[in-house]
């Protein structure tokens, strides 16, 4: 009987009525029969078959599948610990079922539990019976015992409810078995009062078994949701179940009298306002009553408060039921009924309540599932302390921080500064919390990093870190110096270049491999210097910048002052600049470095950066060097390539065969790179240059070069145009007195050769060649852009990627490019402006045919446009060409004061 955990009968006196002796439990249902004497397990009441109820008998609860689901988180279904035996009483005097050993551990909420040994274990166990000892462990039982004791201590004032519906559900235990589930059959015998002192469960004071607990909790929740305890007067704190709960007999004492405690609010005999026969619908075993404070108790009002918290944390315990109350009254809050309401209305109300209860039950289930899942997920939280986590983070960061981010993290730093720091704030947000949490809250992130770096420099660190308890070691070095996986041997250098050290012989044959290599080497060396200087320029010491350390005579370190810092910085800068200039002017063999560097596209791309860095006098010297060797530039030297390619028959006797399409493409690329990178700085330079500079340039150009040769190349013509127009401008402002003489000289040299400047008129068979040879889209883009300047706006320009795939279209672009004569006309215009009338006349006479040709083409353009088949590339090209010719010739004619319309072709 109620020999309790305490070792004595701790029931309240009023409950200590002579208990119904536990009859023999149905076999297999009760783990610990207490056919026992009093003094054995306190849950003896549960051994009473009448106290035992099958889980499935609970009406309204869905059958097995849902239970499986609920039981999946078997450690705490619904947050309630599973039913257990008396605390501390493992054996409970009953033969344990074999499953108990591998039963999952139960624990107070929040502590880790073990998963079941096999799925469905829970179900097995629970299906056995309510009164059974199911699962426990020492820890759990002890904990639970403690919990119970606490509860009991605090709740002892609560009424003690007699064991209720379970007791009354006497036919159920005997007839039902785990297999035979009797859904919802009314199980109780109305009028039957369970033995007082026997709660619905085995606990002293009638604690509940699992199903009761679950039902109780659910209903508590539902009830709490639904209504705040309306008042102690009503049995409202009573939670209700989804189904009309069967509370067992209404509060009608065995002697038929209404139990005082269950007087309805209006004195109706039924506390829930339910006629007795309605009780039949209530499932047995809902020990709701234990939560219901009898309204009449003097302490009733304050019961409204404890139930909510009781509901939450009191599963193994229950408030007693009013003495002699019999099966606790209904589960759900008293409906709004009056005795005068008809049965139909009452039924309707009850149905509504059922529906609501069902919904709430589902929500409660979902919530329970979610909570259980959360508990599972956080089962292993807290394995690492915050300090350990920070330590790992610190190791990682210490490998990452660099003393010189500009050197190590160059790309990111420069990129973000170029793009306006799109990502820096994100990283700034991320980084500081990490370090600050590690206890280095003081100072900014930068300071912290500096501190780490300083410490790192001071102490030579081991290459490997091994933490206690960590597997393996963390290699410290490989982040900055990753192991080289590819072995690129430098031993395969060209043997010819390794011959002499002091006199480097650079082959002058422009297209030879060695020459190319030398050019690349020179360009790379210059690149390095340029980058160094740019970095130095970027890092000029300011008042706030970091000071480097210097050793004093005493051997200490001390930070430099700003002046010292600046001084050292300037020294570095001057050294670098000198080196750069030395490299630029030191001839490699007999090739001028300028020419050499500019013979590869890398060098051409470097040129603008280079020029920007130089001091003005150096820049002038550089330009002069360029002009003096202009005809050695690759763009000038190969200027006959297109003509050679297009019409080799015009060049009989040339030893070299027709150049390949590759060579042609390369030449075009080189020309475009030159025009794009080298020419603009030169234009700037000349446009701002005073006359003496211009004069020197012109002199050098004319003296050292064959102007005709220059003129034959596009690049040369552009350079010449620049100089001539600048000189003319200066002359017109009275600054260039010597110009006319110089012009005469120039004119004389060029006379008769103007026609040679014109590019070819068409490139035959280009499309066929291109069909066999891919053209890089980038080149095409460049060519398009170059010709776009001279073609009329509005002509469609297809995308370069599409062009690269279409040989005909690509051929059209190349054709357009190669036959563009705009630079010639520009040059002629510049000459015309500077020329006297006679000279202009001579100019016109020389190029008359071309003028006429262009004008005629232009005038035919209109007709061609009309006749052009839209979409046909060839005809579109023709139209474009024609229009462009007209436009170009007008450049010249306008300089003369004429216009194409004045000429009749």
């Amino acid at each position: 009987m109620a020999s309790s955990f305490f070792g004595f009968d701790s029931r309240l006196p009023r409950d200590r009525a002579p208990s119904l002796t536990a009859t023999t439990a149905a076999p297999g249902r009760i783990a610990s029969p207490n056919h026992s004497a009093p003094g054995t397990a306190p849950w003896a009441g549960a051994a009473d078959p009448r106290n035992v109820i099958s889980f499935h008998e609970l009406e309204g609860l869905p059958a097995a599948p849902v239970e499986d689901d609920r039981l999946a988180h078997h450690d705490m279904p619904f947050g309630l610990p599973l039913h257990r035996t008396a605390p501390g009483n493992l054996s409970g005097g009953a033969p344990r079922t074999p499953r108990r050993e591998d039963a999952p551990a139960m624990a107070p909420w929040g502590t880790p539990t073990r998963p079941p040994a096999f799925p469905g274990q829970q179900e097995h166990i629970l299906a056995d019976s309510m009164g059974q000892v199911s699962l426990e462990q020492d820890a759990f039982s002890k904990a639970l015992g403690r919990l119970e004791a606490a509860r009991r201590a605090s709740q002892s004032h609560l009424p003690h409810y007699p064991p209720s519906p379970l007791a009354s559900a006497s036919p159920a235990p005997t007839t039902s078995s785990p297999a035979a589930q009797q859904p919802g059959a009314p199980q109780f015998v109305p009028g039957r009062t369970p033995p007082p002192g026997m709660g619905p469960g085995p606990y002293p004071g009638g604690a509940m078994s699992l199903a009761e607990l679950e039902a109780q909790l659910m209903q508590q929740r539902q009830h709490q949701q639904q209504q705040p305890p309306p008042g102690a007067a009503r049995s409202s704190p009573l939670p209700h179940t989804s189904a009309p709960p069967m509370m067992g007999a209404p509060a009608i004492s065995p002697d038929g009298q209404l139990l005082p405690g269950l007087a309805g609010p209006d004195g109706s005999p039924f506390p829930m306002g339910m006629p007795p026969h309605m009780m039949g619908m209530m499932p047995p075993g809902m020990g709701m009553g234990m939560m219901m404070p009898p309204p009449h108790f003097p302490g009733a009002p304050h019961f409204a408060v404890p139930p909510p918290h009781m509901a939450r944390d009191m599963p193994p315990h229950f408030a007693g039921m009013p003495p002699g109350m019999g099966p606790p009254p209904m589960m759900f809050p008293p409906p709004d009924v009056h005795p005068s309401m008809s049965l139909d209305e009452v039924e309707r109300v009850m149905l509504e309540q059922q529906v609501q209860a069902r919904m709430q039950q589902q929500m409660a289930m979902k919530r329970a599932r979610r909570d259980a899942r959360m508990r599972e997920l956080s089962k292993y939280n807290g394995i690492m302390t915050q300090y350990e986590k920070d330590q790992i983070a610190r190791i990682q960061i210490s490998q990452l921080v660099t003393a010189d981010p500009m050197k190590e993290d160059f790309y990111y730093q420069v990129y973000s500064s170029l793009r306006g720091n799109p990502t820096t704030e994100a990283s700034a947000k991320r980084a500081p919390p990490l370090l600050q949490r590690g206890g280095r809250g003081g100072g900014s992130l930068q300071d912290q990093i500096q501190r780490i770096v300083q410490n790192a420099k001071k102490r030579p660190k081991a290459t490997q870190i091994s933490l206690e308890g960590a597997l393996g070691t963390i290699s410290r070095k490989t982040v900055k110096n990753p192991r080289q996986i590819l072995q690129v041997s430098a031993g395969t250098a060209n043997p010819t270049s390794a011959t002499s050290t002091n006199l480097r012989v650079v082959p002058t044959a422009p297209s030879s491999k060695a020459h190319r290599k030398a050019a690349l080497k020179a360009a790379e060396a210059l690149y390095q210097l340029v980058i160094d200087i740019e970095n130095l320029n970027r890092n000029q010491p300011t008042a706030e910048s970091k000071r480097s350390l210097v050793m004093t005579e005493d051997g200490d370190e001390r930070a430099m002052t700003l002046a010292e810092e600046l001084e050292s910085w300037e020294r570095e800068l001057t050294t670098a600049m000198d080196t750069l200039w030395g490299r630029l002017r030191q001839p490699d063999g007999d090739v001028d470095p300028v020419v050499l560097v500019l013979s590869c596209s890398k060098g051409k791309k470097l040129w603008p950066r280079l020029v920007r860095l130089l001091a003005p006098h150096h820049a002038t010297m550089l330009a002069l060097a360029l002009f003096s060797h202009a005809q050695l530039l690759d763009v000038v030297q190969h200027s006959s390539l297109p003509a050679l390619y297009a019409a080799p028959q015009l060049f009989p006797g040339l030893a070299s065969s027709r150049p390949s399409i590759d060579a042609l493409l390369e030449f075009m690329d080189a020309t475009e790179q030159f025009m794009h990178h080298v020419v603009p700085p030169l234009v700037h330079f000349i446009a701002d240059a005073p006359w003496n500079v211009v004069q020197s340039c012109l002199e050098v150009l004319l003296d050292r070069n064959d102007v005709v040769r220059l003129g034959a190349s596009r690049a040369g013509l552009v350079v010449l145009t620049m100089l001539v127009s600048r000189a003319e401008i200066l002359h017109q402002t009275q600054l260039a007195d010597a110009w006319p003489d110089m012009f005469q000289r120039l004119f004389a040299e060029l006379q008769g050769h103007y026609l040679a400047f014109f590019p070819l008129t068409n490139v035959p068979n280009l499309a066929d060649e291109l069909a066999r040879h891919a053209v890089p889209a980038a080149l095409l883009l460049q060519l398009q852009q170059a010709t776009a300047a001279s073609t009329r706006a509005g002509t469609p320009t297809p995308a370069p990627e599409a062009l690269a795939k279409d040989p005909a279209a690509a051929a059209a672009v190349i054709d357009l490019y190669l036959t563009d004569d705009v630079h010639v006309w520009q040059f002629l215009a510049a000459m015309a402006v500077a020329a006297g009338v006679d000279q202009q006349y001579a100019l016109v006479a020389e190029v008359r045919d071309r003028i006429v040709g262009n004008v005629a083409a232009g005038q035919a353009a209109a007709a061609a446009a009309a006749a052009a088949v839209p979409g046909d590339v060839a005809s579109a090209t023709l139209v474009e060409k024609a229009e462009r010719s007209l436009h170009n010739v007008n450049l010249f004619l306008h300089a003369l004061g004429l216009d194409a319309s004045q000429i009749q072709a």
Partner: protein
Amino acid sequence: MFFYSVFKTLVGKTVVVELKNDLAIQGTLVSVDQYLNIKLDHVSAVDPARYPHVATLKNSFIRGSVVRYVHLPASAIDTALLQDATRNEPGNR
């Protein structure tokens, strides 16, 4: 640090990571670390028919050592700067 630096600038861009087991995953780059481990968001397989299990993923963490290629958007890379950065590498100085 070089590739780490490059990937840092690509955070937020859509990349396609091709692994050594031939799986190609497209996603937006969330973060990268010194080992070039990659975190991707809004993950999708380039060939979903072959790798249906990727359909369930929203984001992924890819260990750096299993990556074969990372396909970058060309517009996100400044090639001239990249060349300069390679010149700045400690091994090349």
